[in-house]
């Protein structure tokens, strides 16, 4: 299990999330609009959950299965993660 990162910058989280999403979408990361809904980027519910699993492993958090729906853009997911990490 990776160590939870001590201090995380919003840009770092957003960049990392974008890279994972780009990997699942099989598209270059620079094409992804972090403000666009994940569903409109083409990320279906199967990959949305896989993305949640990646987040949990990297940041040592447990996300609700619906996190990617409750926070449906990369920006919103970033903000949600930051808040969760600050709560500890």
């Amino acid at each position, binding site marked *: 299990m990776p160590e939870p990162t001590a201090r995380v910058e919003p840009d770092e989280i957003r960049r990392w999330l974008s890279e994972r999403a780009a*990997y*699942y*979408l*099989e*598209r270059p990361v620079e*094409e992804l609009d972090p403000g666009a*809904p994940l*569903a*409109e*980027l*083409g990320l*279906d*519910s*199967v990959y949305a*959950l*896989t993305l*949640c*699993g990646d987040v*949990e*492993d990297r940041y040592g958090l447990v996300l609700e*299965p*619906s996190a990617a*729906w409750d926070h449906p853009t990369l920006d919103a997911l970033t903000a949600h993660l930051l808040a969760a990490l600050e709560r500890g």
Partner: protein
Amino acid sequence: MGATEEVQGGPAGAGFRSFADGFRATAEEQPERVAVRFCTAEREEAVTYGALEATARAVGRWIGGRCAPGERVLLSLSPGTGFAKAFLGCLYAGVLPVPVPARGTYARQEARIAAIAADCGAALVLDDDLVESAQLPADGGGGTPAAVAPRTVAFLQYTSGSTDDPKGVMVSHGALVHNIRLLARNQGWHSGMTWCSWLPAHHDMGLIAMLLAPLHLGGTVVLMSPTDFLKRPVSWLRLIDRYGAEVSCAPDFAYDLCARKLGEEQTADLDLSRWRQALNGAEPIDPATLARFAERFESAGFRREALTPGYGLAEATLCVSSAAVDEPPDVRLFDAAGLAGGVLRPPGPDAATVPLVGCGAARGLDVRIVGPDSGRERPEGTIGEVWVRGGSVALGYWRRPEETARVFEAVTAAGEGGFLRTGDLGARVGGELFVTGRLKEMISVRGRNLYPQDIERELRSLEPAFHGLPSAAFGVPVGAREEIVVVQEVRARDLGDEGPEALARRARAALSARLGVRVGGVVLVRLGQVRRTTSGKVQRTLMRTLFRAGTPQAFHAVLDPELRTVLAPVRQPR
């Protein structure tokens, strides 16, 4: 053809050995054997046959104190060992278990559970807390399973049709045991084996193949939650490895997910050499998935022979046919023009081909290929609707006599009755069943039969802007004819200077040329507009309904004037 081999243990009157009888025999003979093991990242829970039997008796008494025999009880349980306890408890009490998803994750699931509860007139909903409290008075005594006959309804399996119109398949005790025996014989399943599954227990494949079969046969099943699988697909393969499971089933998308998305570093120490049967069913099987999975995990010891494609449906309890074990999957190239004409034949020189996956020979069931309108049986190699008769076929749909008569009591032109109409199209080639698509989704244009998945694949290959994005092809009736319509997702940024109109016109012309028939309409929509199920299946019938209502937010639609006459106007926001 047509001869039904009697599967041992099938409905046989007085000597009938029910599902629960098989389970109790193991509980008496090997009470210490693990029946169900549930694993999460943090914990494991193992329940032996002896403990499961005692718990089932307690739960059965608890239910019996609250429900009359024959009443329906929803099982709305989180992944774990609770489902097996509750399901068996229902059989002990003589009530009908109705598996549904656990509550509370998504609004859409809540609506589905409510619709099922109303449809079956549920007397009780068993959730995790209730099952927990119901098993407390485990003081032994009393409580053997209610006596059953082969034609007694064992449980209701709600099909994954539309949310607001759920249909409950009445699976009889005879059909359940017949199908388990059929699977056991086809696959060589026995009591010494270990199964491993992440499939939800309210799904027919998860319930029959991966939970009830091992419990009836005296095997051990290792379970994990569907969410854990989707979050970390590698955890499924690790669990198979850790417990040396020989059997694990999943729909095609799960194999695709693992083959595409697992990094080498995640799978370096994985050993899949003991996984003998990787059954693939419940949705159309993509030959490319089989090849990709076998290649990707060869280094982990996975053998191509383990891939076992199968075909079935809840109306036949689960399995109709499955490929031979310990043989590589039978992927054959057929002539594309032949397929469009309703025949599976080897391709001519330089002819376009379509790969299809063989789903084995049907053994133990009477399977016919029949003209859907004529009822006439079709010869080897000719495509028709798959009809099934025999011990595994369910009794019908709960309280829907008309649909039951139409679907479960079909009669061939030769006057042979009692067939289940599957709604699936396929043909027999060399005794093996090849499924080609859904009858409802096939598009007939000027004497040619076109399958939506083939049209969608052609369209994707035409324009770089379509690459990797979903589309839905369907037929729209215009008078007595049917017109092809395709809804294709595109990214706004890929529309470039030429704009959506030029792209749609070009795509329509090129697709018509490629298919050799006129395409009535091409609709370009934003990402996310082509509806898919949670497992990624394109919902074509739904898309047709949305299209006719003018619902998709289109960038642009090029449509025949005749098509426009049968539609509500398609909105074009910009």
